[in-house]
């Protein structure tokens, strides 16, 4: 589960700006890919389209063979339950404890209180947040808040894990650990797509890298072997 295809996807806004231009990409289930490129390259638009927070102007986005842009609202909600999302700003609920934040997707999916808490604790353990269950987000550092966001994303064991600059607030060692967590999920069959500027990290992991520039794919390490730094230079 988690095969993703972008088929000639274009997203043009009302002002004429094209955030993505004729992008065709294929992600096999259980793969891990880094999206890189300068600001405005189209990484966030790519993520938003895959999350169905936006719709392509042209083309199709097929996940497991289904055009997700055409999903009805209820199906869309069920589709999103298969996605784990990590955003640069983790958007934690300030009036809820850490464990309640992490358990939110589980509660939305109808998980019982006890099971949700158990699975939320396990996810928190994966990102080194043991003992912070009853803390409020404001009592945590920005790095810890980011890890809460990651724990929330992986708590559901998603089929697809989307991360937009997930390590922006983390130190290199912790960033590496988080990437190892993502790799563990990849090994379990989760398709992982990470948008990142962290070239050192990307280079060190040796995973597939796609470089975007002005909404277009300018390089894909699946097609040609490149140093990620070169790919970004090209972008």
């Amino acid at each position: 589960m988690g095969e993703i295809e972008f088929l000639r996807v274009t997203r043009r806004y009302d002002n004429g700006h094209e955030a993505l231009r004729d992008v065709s990409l294929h992600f096999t289930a259980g793969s891990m890919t880094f999206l890189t490129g300068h600001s405005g390259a189209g990484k966030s638009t790519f993520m938003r389209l895959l999350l169905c927070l936006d719709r392509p102007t042209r083309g199709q986005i097929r996940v497991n063979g289904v055009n997700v842009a055409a999903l009805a609202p209820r199906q869309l909600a069920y589709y999103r339950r298969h996605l784990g999302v990590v955003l640069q700003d983790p958007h934690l609920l300030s009036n809820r404890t850490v464990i309640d934040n992490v358990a939110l997707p589980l509660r939305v999916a109808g998980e019982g209180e006890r099971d949700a808490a158990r699975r939320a604790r396990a996810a928190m353990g994966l990102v080194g947040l043991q003992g912070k269950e009853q803390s409020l987000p404001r009592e945590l550092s920005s790095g810890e808040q980011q890890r809460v966001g990651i724990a929330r994303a992986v708590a559901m064991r998603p089929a697809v894990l989307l991360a937009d600059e997930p390590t922006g607030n983390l130190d290199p060692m912790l960033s590496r650990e988080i990437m190892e967590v993502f790799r563990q999920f990849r090994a379990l069959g989760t398709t992982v797509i990470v948008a990142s500027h962290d070239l050192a990290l990307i280079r060190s992991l040796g995973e597939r890298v796609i470089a975007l520039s002005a909404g277009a794919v300018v390089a894909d390490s699946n097609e040609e072997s490149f140093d990620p730094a070169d790919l970004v230079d090209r972008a």
Partner: protein
Amino acid sequence: MKRAKGSTDPWPRIGGGFGGWLRDHALTARESVRELGGRSATTLLVWMLIGIALALPAGLFLVRVNLEVLSGEWEGRPGLSVYLELAAPEEVQDNLAALLRLRPEVERVDIVSSADALEEFKTYTDLADVLDALPENPLPASLRVILKAEVEAGGLEEVAAALDGEAGVADVVVERTWLERVNDLSAALTRLGLLLGVLFGAGALLVAATAIQLAVEQRLAEIRVMRLVGATDAQMRRPLLYLGGLYGLGGGLMAAMWVSLALVLIEAPLARLAGSFGQPLEVVAFDAGFFLALLALGLTLGMLGAFVAVQRRLTAIDGF
């Protein structure tokens, strides 16, 4: 976590089924009550506003129902009052009573002496001291004539006409006039009640909608995150509908309290009014059914207001 078995759906629903749905409702209800407690000042204000909006039409409804009951009781007993001249001797009263009892339309004739009339007047007014200070009783003796239920209005007029000109008779008052006034008043109150009911009902709905609109704005971050993690529209609406329902329920309770308070305040003058027509004060319709209907109305308007506010806003909230 349940995933549909053998499903060919590429994105099967992940969810706890009916149990999960019930759990979500229980959790939402708990959190909504907690939220009300957390914003007690706003909650109290909204409850009072909805309560006032519901109390007025509810109060009018009670008045109308009671007037109907009162007029219904009178309609079954058409009658008239024959007031005698102050100087009329007692045998005139007896002779007239005897004469009336012979008529086939008459069911009963009650003799009210001037002393009885004075006592009755003292009972139903606060003028006992003034009346005691008078050198003589200013009230005339009278006959209260109750006609048979089947007697038509024409029969009433016929009896009244027969008494006109009889020696010792000062005035004949047909009670139908009073009845007609009560009926007219009741009809006017029905229309006024309906109009006010619609206006104030809309007011209660708007109060709930505005309160929920504010709650939505305060919950934007939560709604966005919930949407992102796969909450359905129903799941995002649910806590707000509960909140609206609780606002409405509290408003209904407040309305019942306002109406009770009003009844307590007007009980004494009402009792006197009813007594002056020979009726004991018995307010009907303010019972468990009325109370539950007020709560149900409040709940419905609160939830409807919440639905309107949420539906309008939810579609505009999408992503970050």
